[in-house]
């Protein structure tokens, strides 16, 4: 035992990890909300909202035949794109950027667990992305109020919002996973955008068309529940519904099969993606070296 010296360890108590997660989330969220990307994303969402507003105003017809149909079309038609964009904007470089921009060396010099950094950044990205969803929701509600008055918001919107929030978690989980996999931010951006904008949809079609099974393992299948809740005869269950239709094309009889996920099933699939991708991403980050 040597001599006694002054030192921070004698006076300071490093916060417990859960407290550090909260603190890191707060600072990271402030960073996101101040960033140019946040402003840019709000602008993009405003444009999407404006386009949808113009389309509804121009075509009206069936779109405004009922409040449920309107909310289903407007919300269901735009929120998935908003979610993917928000996840890419806030999650694409969340982990890879720490390596690429060397900001990670600033954080990793602190007495903080990697899990804390990962979880703190995830929650901050989630909240920032959710905030942009609220902008889209506000545009929707403004339109709804214009056509149907303020008291005509269908209860399905609340459920759809809840499903959309789970979907956001799943997309962000995947984005964080890709971001942990590569040390270059661009890969995370591109992979997430490609997969969630059309990659999974193509995969889903391939599975249904060629393998002829329910595509329960594909997240785009589960994501359709966000819009489906506004439909009639909704399947609330944990298993999907198979519909086979026969169409005559000339003399040829063509049979096509579609699957519709149950609402509970969609929720479970999205939650599974969220937990699975976030966990694997965290594991990768835990093992990643700051070389």
């Amino acid at each position: 035992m040597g001599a006694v010296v002054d030192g921070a360890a004698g006076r300071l108590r490093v916060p417990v990890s859960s407290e550090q997660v909260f603190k890191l989330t707060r600072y990271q969220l402030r960073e996101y909300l101040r960033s140019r990307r946040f402003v840019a994303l709000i602008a993009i969402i405003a444009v999407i909202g404006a386009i949808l507003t113009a389309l509804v105003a121009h075509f009206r017809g069936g779109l405004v035949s009922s409040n449920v149909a309107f909310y289903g079309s407007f919300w269901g038609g735009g929120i998935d794109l908003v979610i993917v964009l928000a996840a890419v904007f806030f999650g694409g470089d969340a982990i890879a950027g720490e390596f690429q921009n060397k900001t990670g060396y600033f954080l990793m010099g602190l007495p903080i667990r990697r899990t804390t950094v990962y979880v703190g950044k995830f929650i901050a990205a989630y909240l920032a992305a959710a905030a942009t969803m609220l902008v889209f929701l506000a545009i929707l509600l403004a339109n709804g109020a214009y056509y149907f008055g303020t008291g005509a918001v269908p209860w399905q919107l609340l459920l759809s919002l809840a499903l959309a929030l789970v979907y956001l978690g799943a997309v962000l989980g995947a984005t964080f996973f890709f971001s942990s996999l590569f040390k270059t931010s661009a890969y995370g951006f591109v992979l997430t955008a490609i997969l969630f904008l059309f990659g999974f949809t193509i995969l889903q079609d391939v599975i249904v068309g060629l393998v002829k099974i329910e595509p329960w393992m594909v997240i785009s299948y589960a994501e359709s529940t966000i819009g489906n809740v506004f439909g009639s005869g909704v399947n609330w269950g944990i298993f999907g519904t198979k519909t086979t239709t026969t169409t005559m094309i000339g003399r040829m009889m063509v049979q096509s099969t579609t699957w519709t996920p149950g609402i509970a099933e969609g929720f479970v699939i999205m939650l599974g993606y969220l937990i699975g991708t976030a966990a694997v991403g965290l594991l990768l980050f835990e093992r990643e070296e700051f070389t």
Partner: protein
Amino acid sequence: MPKLVTVPSIETRDLTKSFGHFTALNGLNLKIEGTKCVGFLGPNGAGKTTTLKLLTNMIFPTRGDALLNGVSVREDRKAALADAGVLIESPEIYPSLTPNEALEMVADLRGVPPAERAERIATVLGEVKMTEWADQKVGRFSKGMKQRINIAATLVHDPAVLLLDEPSTGLDPRGMAEVRAIVRDLKKSRRLIFMSSHILSEVVDVCDEVALIDRGKLLFYDTLENVTTRFSDGHASLDASFARPLEPADDARLAALPGVTGSQRLDPKRVRLRFQGGAGGQERLIEGLVGLHLGLLSVAESESALEEIYLQQISRGD
């Protein structure tokens, strides 16, 4: 009642790191205690940054262990880094933050009580001479300014151990001088500073002890004085400057001075004298130089002694 803390320490036990077939660090055993500045010297690629990253668990050892204040960073990185300030690889700070905000974040995550934070932040910003920039966004700062904020971030919790990885590298001469001055000032406070550098003069200028590493192997670790004595066979060097150019005949007169074992003209008005006899020999030599009436202007200990040792030790591995 204040909690007592043992002398800060850095310890590595058979610390080894390989990247594929390349061994960046090979069985490093090092134990540093006390409050002083230790220069971790070596050429580029010697394993200095690898060692510091292993000491902070930024990378993981292939073999061995690294401990800060007696705590293994592998087993409990949080506890190990609690009383350490770390600056590795000139990190970037989130560009939208101001120095005040960045340091607030560091202080908050490190557990500096809210009541003390503002004062601590003001103090460290003053120490790195960035007070007037405290509320400007870091994204607009020069590399040197960012590095000063990085140094401030290592100090905000008043740590007992400081790990600095080539803090002046990449800066312009003015920035380098400023960073060195800051590190010199840090020595006044009672803490252990472990600073890697490939710049010999920086280590001589700032540090009390030196650990030389090359190709992942520790060559020696000792005080600057002991290193110079041990590797120079009792010889030392002085650089003497004169008011007028020396004549050829003056060389013989200089060589005949007491204790002188060799001389080398650095330029027409400067000569490096190698001598023996320690401090007494140095005193007699200076008296002799004055007695020659050659217009002696100044005498300074030659920095080349350590440089010769540095080059000699490193070339042994070639």
